[in-house]
């Protein structure tokens, strides 16, 4: 039981990102309001990003900025820093996410303009007419 508890707790950020992932997925698929779908999408993307950043975390590591100490060599030991590569990737992914959000909202405004609503069932009804 302890081992299982440790298994759950030690990787809690992975579990949290998984929960957020499913919340987001639920929002994208089950919600009727298109704006809610978009918010679900944001949550979904962020969950994956949290997962990615968690990869770079290490025990006893610090912010990946090389530290200089007075009268000492700079600390160049890689184990002292969190892995920065996922961070770099995530920066790109965040920007991509915002771009998608922007396009989605633009389309949403046009849907409102054309159909007069952003509720999915009402749109489908409107299209059937």
């Amino acid at each position, binding site marked *: 039981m302890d081992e299982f508890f440790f298994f759950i707790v030690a990787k809690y950020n992975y579990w949290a990102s998984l929960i957020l*992932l499913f919340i987001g*997925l639920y929002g*994208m698929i089950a919600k009727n309001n*298109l704006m809610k*779908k978009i918010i679900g*999408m944001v949550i*979904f*993307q962020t969950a*994956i990003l949290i*997962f*990615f950043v968690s*990869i770079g975390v290490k025990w006893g590591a610090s912010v990946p900025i090389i530290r200089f100490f007075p009268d000492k060599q700079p600390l160049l030991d890689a184990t002292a820093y969190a892995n920065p*590569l*996922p961070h770099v*990737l995530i920066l*790109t*992914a965040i920007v*991509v996410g915002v*771009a*998608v959000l922007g*396009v*989605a909202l*633009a*389309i*949403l405004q*046009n*849907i409102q303009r*054309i*159909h007069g609503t952003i509720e999915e069932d009402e*749109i489908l009804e409107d*299209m059937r007419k």
Partner: protein
Amino acid sequence: MMDQTPVFIIAIPLFASLLLTLIGPLGPRVAYGLLIGALSLSLGASLATMVRVVQTGQAIHYYMGDWLPPMGIELVIDHLSAAVLVMIGVCALLSGIYSMHTAGQDNHDRLNNYYALFSLLVTGLLGMASAGDVFNLYVLLEISALASYGLLARGGGKAYFATFKYLVMGTIGACFYLLGVGYIYIMTGSLNMADLADILSRESLQESVSIRIGFTLIILGIWTKMALFPLHAWLPNAYSRAGTATACLIAPLMTKVSVYIMLRMMFTVFSADYIFNQIAWSSLVIYMASAAVVLGMITAFAQRDMRKMLTYIIVAEIGYMTGGAWLANTAGYTGAVYHILADGLMTLSLFMAVGAIIYRTGDTSANAMQGIFRRMPITAAVFLIGAASIVGIPPTCGFFSKWYLLQGAVQAGAWIFVAALLIAGLMAAIIFFRLLEAAFFGNLDDEGLSVGHSAPHSGTGAVQMREAPLTMLVPLAVAGAALLGLGIYTNEVVTYLIRWSVPAGF
């Protein structure tokens, strides 16, 4: 200069799209010229690269800014990507030329922005085909996806909602892919494809659950993007409601490039051995592909709207390629890759032919086909060639891809896939026969319009011919000729390009 061709392929359309957003006041003519120029140059660079790859027999590795992998961005152009790059280049250039009249019709204002998105989409596709890095692939996937959302939404009206659905599904797919990449990265610490392939081939990782989850997520993400059968629901509405010029660009290319990514992931990053012996989903995927082929064709049969019919045929064609790739033998793989090239051209010529018919008649239903052979003989001829190719009649290229796929299915003993391919061929024959009969004889139901037996008639003179404008007709004719040309030169394509990329272990 020749060493730099790989980067020109992508950089030229990228900078063109930036430039295009800035030159709005100069008018649509300038924008059109710039777009065509950029696409031609990019195609030229692709061709030059392909020639180099074929001559040297080796993949070209290009390091962006001389940063070496696994840190730097690497472009890898091997035989497979060279073939796909040229296919993308040709399709993009043809649909670019074709867009002159229709783009203006669909987008009344700011044509330069439309062309900027057009160029950006092509950049993303070309980048995906040449990326040597799984994360770059994600970024380029999203670039092309974003551009395609923008383009598809410009169809107006009902296109917005269809695009929104596509956007949601596309984002889910891309995020799954990214999550899968994350899993792979945890286990390997690398994102470079060649590097990953090297690490993943180690014994210790073969059994790893994380790798397996990563692979599953990546493949699911790609399947969503390429609209494989149960995940295809977004595609028909999104594509059929787009503007004509947009549909001609996106329909042939987006899904085909996604199939290319699937092949890349399956055989370059992971290995054939891992996919077929460790994962061992083959039979399930073959069933899915068979279902895609048959149900896609059946649904296509039920459509009255011509473009919607074509989009369901795309769904079926995706089944062809997926099935071929998962047959786990050389013939199946060859068929899948050849079908990427063939289907790109087939779909392009059919969409362009239908677009030209819609342009002249203003009708998107099958009724528009009536009497097309008399009124628009060249368009009708290209439509006929494209239809023959989908049905699989020699010497069009569709026959040869079907040949390889069937051969692979027979060798693999996948009889369900054989049956699905044959049924799909016959269904396609019926679908197109209906349209072509109307195109040939005029009215579908009423005999009044058809030319009676006794009426003396000299043929072409009586009905006024009214072909689409030249900018539509020329790419249309080129695409039709390319279908035949690709079919006749199957041997060369297979020998010089596809055979080189057959993964080890087949």
